[in-house]
């Protein structure tokens, strides 16, 4: 069996006295699209912060492609091939939209802290940045300051920055939050196309999106994963129905 893209082993997190993550065990397989669902405040974003290195775990172990990344610095985890987006838009507000995306390409293209290259002359990098802008439909805003974008456009840019990193594991935290139906449909198509051949871990509230996108789903409630499985398995799990989907939820064929 191939090593899991991501493996969480009894990960816990306390903030002071309150334990928010009470013991996470999760395996995200290579190349799968894995969705995390759960009620507000369940700890989904906190779990993302723990995996991506923003927060230190209180205990437990996290492995990326079999490699221990527990409590590693975020930039190091990113360089190992994990990119993430944020639930609350997290961009570079005083730089242009184009520059936002281009900055996200610089490390993976090997330019590091170079003072010997002029960014405007990096033909491939610029072409790729423009291509990403094309994909997230922001080409026409390329030279605007990111701060002046509309909310939906900033959400798109958030995804653009994340995918520009060229990582094989992409984590998206509620990418469609606050979007209209039409914008959501576009975003889902975009997510599908950019994660082709990659591993996706996505937090999402919109059940339509989840069932459309995910190969497997994990349900997070009160800092614990109570069920993992295919959309159908999860839908029919009585624990899930009780805790999250609600009694009247769905008919099950099983």
């Amino acid at each position, binding site marked *: 069996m191939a090593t899991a893209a991501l493996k969480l082993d009894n990960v816990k997190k306390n903030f002071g006295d309150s334990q928010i993550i009470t013991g996470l065990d999760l395996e995200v397989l290579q190349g799968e699209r894995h969705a995390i669902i759960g009620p507000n405040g369940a700890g989904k974003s906190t779990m993302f912060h723990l995996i991506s290195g923003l927060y230190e775990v209180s205990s437990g172990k996290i492995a990326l492609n079999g490699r221990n990344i527990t409590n590693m610095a975020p930039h190091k985890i990113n360089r190992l091939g994990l990119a993430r987006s944020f639930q609350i838009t997290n961009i570079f*507000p005083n*730089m242009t939209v*184009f520059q936002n995306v281009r900055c996200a390409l610089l490390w993976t293209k090997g330019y590091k802290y170079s003072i010997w290259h002029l*960014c405007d002359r990096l033909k491939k990098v610029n072409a790729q940045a423009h291509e990403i802008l094309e994909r997230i439909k922001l080409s026409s805003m390329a030279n605007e300051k990111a701060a002046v974008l509309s909310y939906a456009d900033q959400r798109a840019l958030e995804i653009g920055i994340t995918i520009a990193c060229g990582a094989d594991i992409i984590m998206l935290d509620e990418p469609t939050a606050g979007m209209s139906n039409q914008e959501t449909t576009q975003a889902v198509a975009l997510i599908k196309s950019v994660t082709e051949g990659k591993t996706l871990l996505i937090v999402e509230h919109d059940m339509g999106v989840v069932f459309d996108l995910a190969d497997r789903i994990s349900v997070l409630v009160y800092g614990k994963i109570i069920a993992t499985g295919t959309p159908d398995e999860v839908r029919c799990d009585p624990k899930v129905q009780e805790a999250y989907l609600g009694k009247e939820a769905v008919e099950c064929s099983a």
Partner: protein
Amino acid sequence: MIDNTTMDSAEIKGGQAVQSGFSGAAIAKWAGIWLGFILISLALPKIFDSRFAMSMFNQMGIAIVFALSFNMLLGQGGLLSFGHAVFYGMGGFGAIHVLCMVNDGELRIYTELLPLAGGIFAAILGFILGFISTRRAAIPFALITMGIGELLLASSLLLPSFFGGEEGIAGDRWTEITLLPFKYGKSIEVYYLILIWMFLSVAAMYLLTKTPLGQMANAVRDNHQRAQFIGYDPHKVRTFQFTLAAFFAGIAGGLFAINYEMVTAENLGMLPSTDILMMTVIGGITYFFGPILGAIFITFLQLVVSNVTHAWMLYFGIMFIIMIMWAPDGLAGLIMRHQPIWRAKRMTKILPSYLAALVPGLVMFAGVIVLVEIMFHISLSIDPESPLSIMGVSFRAQAFMPWAVGILLLGVGGYLFKLAARRVNQAWKTVLAEIKQEGV
């Protein structure tokens, strides 16, 4: 990697590149600006050749390099340093010690390269101190830089062989070991040397804003957290940026050492640190060229106004506060704000309102001058009873009339200025609406 056929040149904006077509017009514009800058610099000493003017130009050139290096931290990196003069001063000491060794025959180094020695010395120090101070930005950084400045100033007394105690270290720039056919006896020769270093430094600092490091310095300034999630260590970005800023401050310090042939510990203290902060902020930190304007303008004021009045620090302070409150983007911001109107060829629509505001503005300013000078005269002059003279008018500072005149000018001027400012606002609104409507 390098290919300029498809990708674009850029405009300066906040030390960032803004994509634009790599058009002939854009190149011509930039070539024009640089050429104009060079021609003016070469013509200046021909037009104004007094001792005073030459010394002022030399100071301006040095201040330009120093202010731009400060803005590598503040404007481009979001790092507010209260101790940037440490690298200016240490660059000066580095250069003057090398010069002393050349004077003593222990070393053979071209005089022209002394600023480079200062820059390298400052950069080494900058790397170490930058590593220590930039782990976090914002307030911890500001306080640490302040502490380092005070620390070095205090330790200068403990290391007299390096800092030269109160008198500082002096050298003789007339060394016979030069690259150019200059002996640096005349101040015009020093001017040309400063000019060369200034242009090299300005160009280098400008290009640096467009490198991966320069771009990431902007990114870390905007959002250091997100920068981590695209593979960058903000601490390293800041450390490298800090090192480069120290390097150019050191070059400025080296030029200072050549210009004055003398460096004292005061050059690295709090005073020059705050000076350069104010210069840069008044010039404007969001545009690359802002600090250049600030350096020229403030150096001019410092030299000219301080000749005319003892109260110049006070005027300087008033101006700084006014700028912070009403023009936080500095002189450069004030100018660039007019760009859309200029492009739409609508400047004539707002200029009359400016002129209308200028008159009451000057009246108000005259009121401020009268009052400030009277107060200064009464409280600080050697003989307060001696007549005070402002712009050729002599009077007793203790008399009632001058006070009344001052208050009247201030009050009436202020009131009219307020009305005029409203008209300026109105004119702006109208013009912007027009431009928007026509989509020019």
